[in-house]
């Protein structure tokens, strides 16, 4: 145990502090009190009076041990760097395949797939207006498309994150491809990214296809299926990013995410699953804003709160179940259209905050994401940013380097208090599902978003190049990706038609009937039928359409 500051030294400290406060007031006057985005008051100076090492053993501990404040692994980045997982998604499967191979050659160690918005909404390419196809993600409608997207990619050796909300058809297509190639499912690793249906109900509704309670059930079925058949896959990625991007403060975003996680964990326990089986595969996905220290503190606090929840609330016994594993993405909402190259500096700051926050995998935005899907050059800079931080700035040489900072520790504690207060509020409302069905969460997020925008408009929050340091710019000078070639899209739709013509209509029909029946039943595993349908050649639109009919069309509740 650390020696407390001695009695005589304490008196000196108090005197010195008073002296400093006088000098500060003389120099800086009485400035307006500052707050971070979560509303925590920020002082100009932090000292042992705010946090002293006496608390080390209880509240910090060592990396890899409860409560994991300093990191979930003993080795952290000294053992293994965070994964550089850059989002990729554009055009047709062949375009995706080309970009994937470029990224792998540049050193990206894990893959990600973003499908086209039409896919997010649950439709096939021939069911939607042609203008909206393939501009933000890849069009993948069936196992054949997935084959072409992953052509020559060693799926048994790489981790793939599928941006693939309930009912997880993209994963089903990948599993079907694995089966065709003879890659056993236990070798398939990755994450069902953004599988958190609650976050889609509340914010970024694009992913929300099936009515909330139906989506809830499929999430649990999917976890159960993967636990048994694809044990190296993380079925759940609980998302704080959407809510923070929708305007939730960092503390709110962390708290709401943990509340959603509590519901999923409790649903799994109610379904008879052992916490020590499913918790190690719960992962999280967060936004990282430019509010540097606040983000670091948010992640450290989140790690601590989650560890306590797992051990005490869910009763998990295995230390591996208590680990808060998360992917961070630099926040697109902080980026500006004005002077876009400034975004490179912003992304660097955000990435550093995530790294000091102890993330397990990181996506850095390209500077031109404000215009459209990134150009090759901009995507390259985003990856290089991570490489520079790791290998030139040596940010990985020391584990939790900001630990012990009077400010960071004090801020971590205060962020934790805010987070826990919100969790208590949601518990009092009956849990996250009830809270979002009543619109309570949506209202809080909307209020925070409005408050922030008003501060920006009033000049109380600076946005460089927008409300300060602005210059005359010609928007026509900005680079942008051309929209996908319509001819390529038409070819893609032709391939879809050919695929449908070539498959066994009887097999598909049988599979979809079984899928509908499983949705109507109370105890069949719906996801198992989604996989079977994918293998039988059913398309994404057909699978989603069937489930929408059975379980209800997803309509989020929006509150102004």
């Amino acid at each position, binding site marked *: 145990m650390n020696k407390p500051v001695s009695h005589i030294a304490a008196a000196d400290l108090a005197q010195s502090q008073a002296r400093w406060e006088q000098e500060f007031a003389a120099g800086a006057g009485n400035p307006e009190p500052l707050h971070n985005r979560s509303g925590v008051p920020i002082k100009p100076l932090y000292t042992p009076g705010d946090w002293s090492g006496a608390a080390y053993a209880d509240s910090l501990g060592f990396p890899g041990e409860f409560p994991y404040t300093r990191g979930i692994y003993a080795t952290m980045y000294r053992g293994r760097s965070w994964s550089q997982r850059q989002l990729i998604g554009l055009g047709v499967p062949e375009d995706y395949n080309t970009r994937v191979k470029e990224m792998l050659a540049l050193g990206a160690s894990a893959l990600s797939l973003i499908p086209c918005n039409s896919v997010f909404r649950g439709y096939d390419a021939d069911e939607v207006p042609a203008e909206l196809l393939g501009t933000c993600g890849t069009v993948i409608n069936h196992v054949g498309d997935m084959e072409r997207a992953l052509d020559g990619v060693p799926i048994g050796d790489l981790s793939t994150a599928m941006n693939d909300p309930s009912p997880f058809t993209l994963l089903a297509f990948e599993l079907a491809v694995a089966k065709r190639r003879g890659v056993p499912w236990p070798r398939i690793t990755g994450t069902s990214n953004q599988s958190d249906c609650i976050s889609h109900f509340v914010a970024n509704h694009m992913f929300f296809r099936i009515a909330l309670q139906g989506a809830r059930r499929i999430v649990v079925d999917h976890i159960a299926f993967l636990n048994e058949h694809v044990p190296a896959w993380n079925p759940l990625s609980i998302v704080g990013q959407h809510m923070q991007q929708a305007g939730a403060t960092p503390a709110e975003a962390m708290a709401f995410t943990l509340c959603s996680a509590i519901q999923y964990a409790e649903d799994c326990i109610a379904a008879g699953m052992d916490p020590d089986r499913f918790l190690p595969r719960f992962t999280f996905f967060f936004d990282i804003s430019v509010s540097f220290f606040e983000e670091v503190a948010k992640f450290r606090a989140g790690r601590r709160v989650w560890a306590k929840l797992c051990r005490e609330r869910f009763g998990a016994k295995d230390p591996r179940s208590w680990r808060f594993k998360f992917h961070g993405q630099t926040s697109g909402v902080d980026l500006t259209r004005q002077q876009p190259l400034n975004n490179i500096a912003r992304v660097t700051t955000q990435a550093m905050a995530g790294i000091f926050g102890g993330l397990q995998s990181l996506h850095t935005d390209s500077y031109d994401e404000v215009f459209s899907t990134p150009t090759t050059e901009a995507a390259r800079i985003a990856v290089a940013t991570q490489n520079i931080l790791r290998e030139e700035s040596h940010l990985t040489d020391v584990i939790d380097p900001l630990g012990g900072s009077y400010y960071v520790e004090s801020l971590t504690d205060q962020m934790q208090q805010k987070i826990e207060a919100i969790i208590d509020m949601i518990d009092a409302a009956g849990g996250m599902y009830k809270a979002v069905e*009543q619109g309570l969460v949506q209202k809080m997020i909307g209020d925070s978003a409005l408050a922030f925008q008003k501060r920006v408009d009033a000049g109380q929050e600076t946005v460089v190049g927008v409300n300060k340091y602005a210059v005359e710019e010609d928007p026509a000078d900005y680079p942008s990706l051309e929209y996908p070639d319509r001819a390529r899209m038409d070819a893609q739709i032709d391939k879809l038609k050919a695929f449908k013509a070539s498959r066994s209509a009887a097999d598909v029909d049988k599979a979809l009937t079984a899928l509908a029946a499983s949705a109507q039943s109370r105890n069949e595993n719906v996801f198992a039928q989604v996989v079977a349908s994918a293998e039988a050649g059913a398309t994404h639109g057909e699978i989603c359409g069937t489930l929408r009919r059975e379980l209800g069309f997803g*309509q989020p509740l929006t*509150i*102004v």
Partner: protein
Amino acid sequence: MNAAATPLEAILAGDRRAVARAITALENDSPAASGVRATVGAHVGRAHVIGVTGPPGGGKSTLVSALIRQLRARGHTVAVVAVDPSSPFTGGAVLGDRIRMGEHQADEGVFIRSLASRGHLGGLARAAGDVVDVFDAAGFDTIIVETVGAGQSEVEVTRIADTRLVVCPPGLGDDIQAIKAGVLEIADAFVVSKADLPDAQRTENELLSMLTLRRGQAVTPPVLRTVATTGEGLVELVDWLGRRTPRGTRRGATEDQAARDLVARAIGADGYAKHLGLELVAAQRGSTTVRMRVGAQHVNFNNRCHGGAIFSLADMALGLAGNSHGNIAALIDGNISISKAVELGEWLVAHATEVSRSRKVAVYRVDVSRASDRAHVACLSGTVYLLDKPVTFKT
């Protein structure tokens, strides 16, 4: 649509754009308003106007949506007036009610119009009545007026309806007593929504028992149950609505309706009633029911309800009944006998009935009972002197 038709003819032909613009004209009292009123006024009376109100969160919009589905399945055209509250500070409003009826947004046989409660010339009820008239003249079979029911103006709005539904979610518990008394007494039927929830039976029982205290009503309003998400109870509800004969009741007030309106206004203008927390439960010509919850201000030094408070409650019912015919009636003699001590927190219900009435004098009997067990608490008999002057209110 015949291009040569005038806007007024277009309204009567049901042209959607003309209907919408006519509503705007009336809503904003534009120069075109009087012409619209004249055209429309001669063509109303055909539609069945259903008012739907109830506490927020009660599932009203979901019920209305399910109701529309049933009506459409039976071939009715449906218009909806969705009343949303305006901000008292900014005058702005988010018209969110219609959004909750999402499934009907694309149906050509359904027309939904939002109406914000902002300071309408002539009041919100009149504005809603205008919108209803346009829909009626345009030929819609059923017109639903939906309000939040949280304020007195919303209660006023549902008075324009032929049939008034009050929607109660289960689990209100004690809050049933808290549903505005004015709302309760106007209901033609109660609907327990979300009836698949565990508290539904209890809520139904509480409503039924409260309704039996409303003695003196010609017809006891039914209590129906629905589960809007599955459609359970909707067929029965629409069948019941179909049996109602609404024609003309909206436009010409019946005697009882006039009496009800007068009594409601009277208790609202009564300072003493406010002071004691007296609430109107039911009224018609010559009889009223008033209730009071025994609070700290009503108890004596023995911690029981003060006899004076019981007298005041009974006298309120008596006075309202006496005045319900329209002329001023003043108590000249009253005698109370009290048979039970009443504890803090109990609800007391006073029901006044007319024993006799001549040109100058009327005699009333008021029975006061305890709501929790219907035990008899007191009996007041009183005589009122009738003046030749009508009851008038300071506006």
